[in-house]
């Protein structure tokens, strides 16, 4: 397919349909995504020479990619509804004022630090689905709660979720972590402070930002340094989680220093420490089991013995776009984060029942709420992943990225690279998939232009990390626990512009870095 303005706009059409429906017409995520899917199918059939077989296999591929996400989504919603039923969300909301009476500090603890830490356990919008209800419990509107949690953890996506996105970048480009990690850690480190500042402003206004600015700077510095140190020393799979844990601890320590201390709110009424420990035990179990499965090789090997994948044949469109034959990503049902969530739910249910936190009829209520929230969210995810699969197998995604890269001069390309990462993540809902889609394209473009390849790839994955949190697929999941199903457009409207701030900062940094280091690098 020749690249010109018309074909480029045609490739963009499915995304435009999703954006206009969600942002302009406030359509629900599932409806906008379904409309995007139909548009992608029509454009690929009529203009990109896709055969029905290409589209059929694309849908099979989409289902496989969706399964990975949906298993986590259903598990996370089950866990959330269980802890909500037991009263844990209310208990955490009531406990926060006892840590600090400063609303800005409370907001930062939940929607900047805790949400980033949870990103280490599993992404796909789950950190938002867990933390947003706590903010609603603190009195914030559901829309603001989702926006704050989304922006707060955007920096942690690349090295979070056991760095699956970063590993994908290494796998597709063939470059080592030692080459890629330093620049990626620095670019993402630069996004930590802006993310926290946006959260502080949204949560408590400019006054809150002024008041917490020294705290924000210190904690950002610590998180950036820890993430960089771990990433460059080969521990990238723990870099974001450890960094946010360090940030959380430093924040709690700083709050003990008289200069930062603010008396707990007079009305602070929290559960006793023992009660609070029982109530939050599901999160502790989740952490323990999650880390054990990932970090104990023998356990991981044992649980990963069972794996399923599909074999897809080589596909080609009538216009000659070829997608190589492939084996889909294996699905390990026993070591999958969804199974870890289900195991956590089971153990937590036993603990809660034993301690008397579960009342009669709770099981039915939980099941009803899970089905209600997850049903809509799941349809949206399936349709949106379908859009990505159709666009990729028919060559539309490649054309879109080629258009972006070829319309920009060599000097300005480093500033464009993060936006290509954003595009991939917005489309697929995943930093990981953005790197798979565009990693090689960015590398080849950088080589042809004589640019610093690791820097361009770092900009790609940083953009993917920051852009993934505003993707419809993630926002749909984030909205599912705060009663915003079918109203995701309200969140997208606020989120997209605010989330572009750290992206622009990363783009500017990549541009300046490229200019300072000269070509090649």
């Amino acid at each position, binding site marked *: 397919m020749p690249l010109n303005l018309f074909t480029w706009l045609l490739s963009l059409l499915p995304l435009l349909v999703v954006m206009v429906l969600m942002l302009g017409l406030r359509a629900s995520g599932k*409806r906008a995504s379904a409309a995007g899917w139909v548009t992608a*199918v029509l454009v690929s059939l009529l203009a990109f020479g896709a055969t*029905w*077989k290409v589209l059929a296999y694309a849908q*099979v591929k989409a289902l496989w990619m969706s399964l990975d996400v949906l298993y986590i989504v259903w598990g996370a919603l089950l866990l959330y509804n269980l802890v909500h039923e037991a009263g844990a969300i209310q208990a955490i909301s009531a406990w926060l004022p006892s840590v600090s009476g400063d609303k800005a500090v409370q907001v930062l603890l939940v929607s900047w630090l805790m949400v980033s830490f949870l990103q280490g356990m599993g992404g796909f919008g789950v950190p938002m689905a867990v933390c947003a209800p706590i903010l609603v419990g603190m009195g914030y509107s559901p829309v603001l709660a989702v926006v704050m949690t989304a922006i707060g953890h955007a920096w942690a996506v690349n090295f979070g979720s056991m760095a699956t996105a970063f590993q994908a970048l290494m796998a597709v480009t063939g470059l080592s972590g030692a080459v890629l990690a330093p620049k990626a850690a620095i670019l993402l480190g630069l996004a930590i402070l802006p993310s926290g500042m946006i959260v502080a402003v949204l949560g408590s206004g400019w006054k809150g930002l002024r008041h917490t600015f020294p705290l924000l700077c210190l904690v950002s510095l610590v998180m950036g340094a820890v993430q960089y140190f771990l990433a460059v020393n080969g521990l990238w799979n723990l870099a974001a989680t450890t960094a946010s844990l360090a940030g959380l601890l430093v924040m709690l320590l700083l709050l003990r220093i008289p200069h930062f201390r603010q008396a707990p709110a007079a009305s602070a009424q929290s559960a006793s420490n023992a009660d609070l420990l029982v109530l939050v035990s599901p999160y502790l179990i989740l952490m323990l089991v999650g880390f054990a499965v990932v970090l104990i090789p023998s356990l991981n090997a044992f649980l990963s013995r069972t794996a399923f994948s599909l074999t897809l044949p080589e596909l080609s469109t009538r216009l000659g776009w070829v997608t190589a034959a492939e084996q889909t990503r294996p699905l390990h049902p026993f070591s999958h984060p969804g199974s870890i969530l289900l195991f956590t739910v089971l153990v937590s249910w036993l603990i809660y029942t034993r301690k008397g936190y579960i009342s009669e009829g709770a099981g039915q209520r939980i099941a009803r709420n899970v*089905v209600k929230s997850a049903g809509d969210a799941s349809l949206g995810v399936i*349709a949106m992943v379908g859009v990505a699969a159709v666009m990729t197998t028919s060559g539309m995604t490649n054309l879109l990225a080629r258009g972006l890269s070829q319309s920009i001069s060599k000097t300005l390309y480093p500033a464009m690279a993060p936006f290509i990462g954003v595009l991939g993540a917005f489309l697929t809902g995943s930093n990981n998939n953005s790197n798979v889609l565009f990693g090689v394209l960015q590398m080849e473009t950088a080589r042809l232009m004589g640019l610093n390849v690791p820097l361009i790839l770092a900009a790609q994955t940083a953009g993917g990390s920051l852009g993934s949190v505003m993707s419809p697929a993630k926002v749909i999941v984030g909205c599912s626990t705060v009663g915003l199903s079918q109203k995701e457009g309200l969140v997208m409207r606020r989120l997209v512009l605010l989330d572009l701030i750290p992206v622009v900062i990363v783009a500017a940094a990549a541009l300046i870095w490229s200019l300072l280091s000269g070509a090649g690098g």
Partner: protein
Amino acid sequence: MKLKQNHLPALSLRASLLLFVLELSLPFWLYAALNSEKLILAKLLFGLIAAGMLAIIILPEKPKR
């Protein structure tokens, strides 16, 4: 999104779930049909998936609180 579709039944929770189950299970059957070269069945299944997507777009959603 406000469309003139009052004459159509609303997409209830049960209907949404049914659509979800269909959109989740049909691609598996589609894969099996493609692998066993039952192309007419595969076309039919892909048509059903597309019909499900159209239903999501066309049928009005039940308003939520």
